[in-house]
C-alpha cells in the first residue's frame, strides 16, 4: 500500500514540476502574441479602444503576459486546478475542447505503435535467441541494425513517398494524411473504426519499423542470457513442455530488463508526435505544437506540454503497476528498484 502512495505522490510531483518548468520557459518566449492580435483587431476596427480589446483577450487567456511572474503563476495554476486550460488565439478555440479533440488521437497512434512494437520485438528477439547463430538470426540482426539507424520521420517520409503515393492499392487503404476519411463522423460505426485504424497505420508504422530493431536485439541478448540460467536447465530436466519454458521461464525473465526501454519509448514517442503528426498532417496534439511556437501562442503551448506530460506520467504509472505484477521481487523489495 505504501508503495502505491509513494508512487502516486511521485507522479503528482512530476506533473507539478514539469508544469512549472513549462510555465517558466514559455514566459521567456520572444514575441508577444497578444500585442500582435490586438493590433490586428484595431486595424480592422479602428473605432475600438485598444485597452478594452486587450483586457478582453487577457481575460479569455487567463494570464496576462505582462503580469509579474508570481501573480501569473498563481492565477494560471488556480485555473488549471479548477480544470480550465484556457483559450487559444491561434486555434480560436477553448483549449479544453481542442485537447479533447486531439489528445485521444495521439494516444491512439502511440498505443497502436507501442503494442505493435513490443509484440514484434519480443517475439522476434526470443526466436532469434533460440535460433542463435542461424541464418535467420544473422539476417534479422543485420536488418534490425539497419532499420534502427533510420530516424522515425525519415521512415515516415519514405512510407509517404513509396507506399502512400504510388497510385494503387495502398493509398486507398492506408492514407498518408489526416486522421479520418472525408465525411466520416466519430461514432461507434465500422466506417469510423476502420477509418481511424487505417489512417493511424502509417504514422504508427513509422515508429515501429525504426524502433523494433534495437528492442529485438536487446530481447535477443536477454533471452540468450536467461537460456544459460540454471533454472531453465532444471525446468528442462523436470520435463516441462518447451512452450511453457519459452514463455514462463525465458520470455518472462528476459522481458523484465526491457522495462526501462518501454518507459523511455513512451516519452520518446509522444515527443516525436510533434514531427510525425506534421508530416502526416495528422491533427493530434503534436500537430499543434508547430503553430503554437510559430505564433507564440503560450496557452496553446502550455496545454500541449501539459497533455503530453500527463500522458507520459499516466503511462509510466500504469507501466510501473504492471511491472510490480510481473516481477514479484519489486513489491516486497525494500527500496523497490522499480526502474
Amino acid at each position, binding site marked *: 500500500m505504501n508503495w502505491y502512495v509513494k508512487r502516486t505522490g511521485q507522479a503528482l510531483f512530476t506533473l507539478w514540476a514539469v508544469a512549472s518548468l513549462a510555465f517558466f520557459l514559455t514566459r521567456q518566449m520572444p514575441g508577444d502574441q497578444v500585442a500582435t492580435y490586438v493590433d490586428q483587431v484595431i486595424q480592422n476596427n479602428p473605432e475600438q479602444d485598444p485597452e478594452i480589446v486587450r483586457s478582453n483577450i487577457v481575460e479569455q487567456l487567463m494570464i496576462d503576459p505582462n503580469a509579474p511572474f508570481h501573480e501569473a503563476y498563481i492565477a494560471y495554476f488556480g485555473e488549471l486546478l479548477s480544470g480550465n486550460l484556457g483559450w487559444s488565439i491561434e486555434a480560436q478555440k477553448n483549449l479544453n475542447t481542442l485537447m479533447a479533440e486531439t489528445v485521444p488521437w495521439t494516444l491512439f497512434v502511440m498505443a497502436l505503435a507501442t503494442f505493435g512494437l513490443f509484440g514484434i520485438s519480443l517475439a522476434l528477439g526470443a526466436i532469434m535467441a533460440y535460433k542463435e547463430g542461424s541464418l535467420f538470426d544473422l539476417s534479422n540482426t543485420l536488418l534490425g541494425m539497419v532499420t534502427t539507424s533510420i530516424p522515425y520521420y525519415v521512415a515516415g517520409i519514405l512510407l509517404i513517398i513509396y507506399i502512400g503515393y504510388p497510385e494503387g492499392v495502398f493509398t486507398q487503404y492506408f492514407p498518408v494524411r489526416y486522421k479520418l476519411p472525408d465525411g466520416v463522423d466519430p461514432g461507434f460505426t465500422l466506417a469510423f473504426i476502420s477509418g481511424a485504424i487505417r489512417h493511424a497505420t502509417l504514422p504508427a508504422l513509422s515508429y515501429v519499423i525504426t524502433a523494433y530493431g534495437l528492442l529485438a536485439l536487446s530481447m535477443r541478448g536477454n533471452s540468450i542470457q536467461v537460456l544459460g540460467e540454471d533454472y531453465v536447465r532444471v525446468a528442462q530436466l523436470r520435463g516441462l513442455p518447451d512452450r511453457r519454458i519459452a514463455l514462463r521461464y525465458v520470455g518472462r525473465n528476459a522481458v523484465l530488463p526491457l522495462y*526501462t526501454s518501454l518507459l523511455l519509448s513512451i516519452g520518446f514517442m509522444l515527443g516525436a508526435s510533434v514531427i510525425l503528426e506534421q508530416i502526416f498532417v495528422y491533427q493530434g496534439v*503534436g500537430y499543434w505544437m508547430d503553430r503554437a511556437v510559430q505564433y507564440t501562442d503560450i496557452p496553446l503551448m502550455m496545454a500541449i506540454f501539459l497533455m503530453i506530460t500527463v500522458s507520459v506520467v499516466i503511462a509510466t504509472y500504469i507501466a510501473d503497476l504492471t511491472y510490480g505484477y510481473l516481477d514479484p521481487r519489486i513489491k516486497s523489495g525494500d527500496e523497490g528498484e522499480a526502474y
Partner: protein
Amino acid sequence: MKVKPTEEDTADDVRTDGGQMFDDAESTDVGAVQEYKEVLYEGLVAPAKIAWSDWRTKTGIIILGAFVLIAILSDLHQNGYTILNDFLGIVGSPWELTKPSSAFGCDANGNNCVAGYERSRQPFENWQTPLGTDPEGRDIFAGIVWATPRMLRMVLAGGVFSIAVATIVGTVAGYKGGVVNTVLMTLTDVAMSIPGLPLVIVIVAILDPTNPYLIGVVVTINVWAGLARTIQAQVLSLREQSYVEASRTMGIGTPSIIQKDILPNLMPYIMVNFVYSARRVIYDTVGLYFLGFLSYSTIANWGVMMNWAYANQGALAPSGPRYLIIVPMAPIVLLSFGLILLSQGTDRLFNPRVRTRHEGDTVEDHEMDDDDSVQPAMA
C-alpha cells in the same frame, strides 16, 4: 578476481615493508612507466584489437572515420585551407567542393547557370554534381559535405554532455545513497517524464541557438536521465562488491574509490550510451531543422535541405521532386548506422558472457562455477 586493476604486479619488488603497502608514490619510477604502459595496453590497445576483430565495430569505425575525415577536410576548406580541392584536382575528380549557395551555379533567379551546372539535375547523371542539383542549381553533394562538420560538432557536444551529466548524477546518487540519492533520482524521474522534443522546441524558440555545440547540448537536455538511472542502479550493486568494501575499509576516499573501482566498471554503459545519445542528437537536430524550428541562413544542416525540399519544393506531394528530400536523408541514416554498429560491437566487447558462449567453451566455466565455494584444504 574482479576487474579491479592491480598495481601489485609492478610494484611488488619494491614494497618490502608492510607499512608502506599502499604508498606507491615514492616506490617506483620504473614501475610508474610500466604501469602506464599496462594501463595503456589494457585500456586501449587490447580493446581496440578485439574491436577490430569484430566486423560490426570494424565497419562502424570505418564509417565514422570517413565522416570525421570529410568533416575535417570540409572544415579546413571553409576556413580557407583548400586541401580537399587540391587533392581532388590532382586526382582529376570532376567534382570539387564549393559553397552550396545559389549564387554559384546560377544567378539569384536560378537562371543563366554556369556551364556544366544546371538546375534540378537528378542524382548520378553527371559526375560534376554526383548527387544532382536542386532547383536553384546548388550542388547537393557539396551541401552534404558542407554541413558535416557542424553535424559532428553537435553530436560530440550532445554526447559528451549527456553522458557527463548522467555519469555524475548516477554515480553520486548511487554511491552516496540516502537523501542525495532520493533528491537526485527524483530529479531524474522528472526529467525522464518530460517529453523531450516539445521541451527542446520551446528552449530553441527562446534561445534561437546557432552555435553547434550549444544546439547539441540543448537537444540532449533531458536525454541523460535514462542513462543516469541505469548507472545509479549499477553503482548501487557495485558499491556492495567486496573489493569496493575493502577499499572503504582501508580508508580510501570516496572520489578515489569512484574513480578507481566504480568508473572502470561503468565504461560499457557509458560507451554504449554515448552512441545512443549521439544518435538522438542527429535525429533531433535534423528533425528540428527539417520542421524549421531551428533557424538557418545557409545550408547548415542536412535537415535544412530536407526542410527546403519539403516546405518550398513540395517534395512530399504526389509528383514532387523526391530526390531532393531522399538524398539528404542518406547521410543521416549512414551516420547513425555507423554509430549503431559501433554500439552493438561494443556491447559484445564488454559482455564476456555473450562472448564466451560464442566461443563455445562452457565446460571449464561450468566446472569452475560448481566448486566456487571455499575449500581451504584442497587449494
